[in-house]
């Protein structure tokens, strides 16, 4: 037990998660379940991306569905009209969403808090209208169909022909793991620390020499690129893109996942994406009820658990640690006084 504790609950959880995830296709034969799992992986990418700007930098965006859409449409257009394969559309989509993210960030991040939310909402709506009405390029309301699968990959004994859902799984998992590692490296650096400082106190951060605006814009750009990558994967996985996927509801869904999982936490992003995707698939028959429950969930989470599921987990973990510490201390009373703080922002 001691070496497990040394490893840290966080790392242990991550390790178990990765191993369990690798085993999944072996046990699941139902293609629908495989489809849902792949969808979860795409959502994890989106949530990781949005969490960079919302959770780590404290700038709320409800327009990230648009970056997801731009990535998907670029993949769709370049692959169907120019015949480019997935390995070419992916970098193009990432670069394009990053550039658009930079422009939107450069304009929008001059605004703060609710004004930024409104600006990103407007941006998301504009992009959705472009998808819907620029019929020559985006196919209008019909969208673009027949997007090719990624080219088959051959690893000797192990082949991915991308003819069934299970074939996409290792590819998507690979990108999710890359994204997680990328996020970790990013967060545990001077840049990542600068972002969290901006989230916690902009003025104090700036007084420490952190260029607030520039840092925000860079993070927004990276965040948009994540969503662009997710969009490309989505397009090549689903084979069809249409405007209604990338509307306001998508942006809200991703944001809800960030909130439910816990802002500023990689495990939180994974949890939020997984739970909400399963949840929304389970309620597929009654979409109206789904939005109602989403709304209620956000309200309840914001009121009682503003740090999401990870907030609750950290809270209880701290309680357990405190108890253990008190037990160690000689003559300490058995009763533990755990302060009510720690769940929410101050």
């Amino acid at each position, binding site marked *: 037990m001691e070496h497990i504790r040394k490893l840290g609950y966080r790392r242990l959880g991550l390790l178990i998660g990765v191993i369990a995830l690798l085993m999944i296709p072996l046990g699941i034969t139902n293609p629908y379940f495989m489809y849902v799992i792949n969808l979860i992986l795409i959502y994890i990418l989106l949530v990781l991306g949005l969490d960079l700007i919302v959770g780590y930098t404290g700038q709320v965006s409800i327009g990230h569905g648009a970056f997801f859409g731009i990535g998907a449409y670029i993949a769709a257009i370049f692959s169907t009209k120019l015949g480019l394969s997935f390995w070419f559309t992916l970098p193009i989509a990432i670069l394009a969403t990053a550039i658009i993210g930079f422009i939107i960030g450069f304009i929008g991040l001059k605004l703060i808090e609710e004004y930024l939310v409104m600006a990103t909402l407007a941006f998301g709506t504009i992009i959705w209208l472009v998808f819907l009405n620029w019929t020559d390029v985006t196919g209008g309301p019909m969208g673009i169909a027949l997007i090719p699968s990624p080219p088959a990959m051959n690893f000797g004994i192990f082949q991915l022909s991308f003819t069934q859902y299970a074939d996409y799984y290792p590819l998507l998992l690979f990108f999710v793991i890359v994204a997680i590692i990328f996020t970790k*490296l990013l967060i545990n650096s*001077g840049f990542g620390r600068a972002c969290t400082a901006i989230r916690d106190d902009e003025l104090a951060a700036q007084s*420490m020499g952190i260029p607030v605006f520039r840092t925000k814009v860079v993070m927004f750009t990276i965040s948009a690129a994540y969503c662009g990558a997710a969009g490309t994967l989505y397009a090549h996985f689903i084979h069809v893109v249409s405007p209604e996927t990338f509307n306001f509801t998508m942006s809200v869904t991703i944001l809800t996942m960030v909130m439910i999982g816990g802002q500023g936490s990689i495990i939180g992003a994974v949890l939020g994406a997984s739970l909400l995707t399963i949840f929304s698939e389970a309620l597929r028959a009654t979409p109206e009820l789904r939005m109602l429950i989403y709304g209620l969930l956000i309200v309840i989470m914001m009121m009682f658990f503003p740090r999401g599921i990870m907030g609750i987990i950290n809270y209880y973990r701290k309680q357990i640690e405190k108890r253990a510490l008190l037990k160690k201390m000689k003559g300490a009373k058995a009763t533990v006084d755990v302060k009510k703080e720690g769940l929410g922002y101050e």
Partner: protein
Amino acid sequence: MNKENLTDTAILTVAGLSKSFGGVKAVNDLSFSVKKNHIHAIIGPNGAGKSTLFNLITGIIPPDQGEVRFSTTDITSLSSDQIAKHGVSRTFQNIRLFPDMTVSETVLIGTYLLTGAKLAPALLRTKAFREKEQAAKQRVEEILKFVGLWDVRDEYAAQLSYGNQRRVEIARALATQPQLLLLDEPTAGMNPKETKELMELFTAVNNEGITILIIAHDMNLVNTLSDHITVINFGEKLVEGTAEVIQKHPAVIEAYMGKVKVDA
């Protein structure tokens, strides 16, 4: 350290600085200079424009008129992060900590200017990146030991006592390796013991060769610590000089106590 040899050079020069909020002249044509390695106190009644002056010096708000020079550099129109880069750091009147961070994490933020924020080295974890991270951690350790917070380094900064929260703020400011440290009422709301301990810390910081510009109401602190005092009232400079000069000056007594009627 022999202060007399260093007193010739001004590290900070404020010339003709003005700032109005609507019709209120918060700072009005204010000029003074801070000598290198001094502890320079700014005193004045509430609302005299002391905090506004700090915000003007550190670039948080732009002045209407006038100039702020740091050593020989004009920093008037620079943003606060650029000013921090030049070697000016500060604490805030109402302590501004990062609510989600432990003490050591908070102070680590102050090493931003040392580590920088380049993305490529961070993602590749280059040797230079790792060395800088190591140097930053080293600096945090030194500073935490220096200000006496090493034992509480893993506690959340916001959960510490008021006096220790102020220490965290000072430690964070020191982590930027400033030449000039601005302290905005650092001992407000402290008990006498905390005040005394903080005063010892300020002296220690000053002995490290860091010039201190301090806003304070506590006259005991001002008289004990400061090499030079500037009194401001209604945004204008009233008097300046050493503690003895200031204490006896009729204009200062008037600003604080009101006009003494002598007609009887």
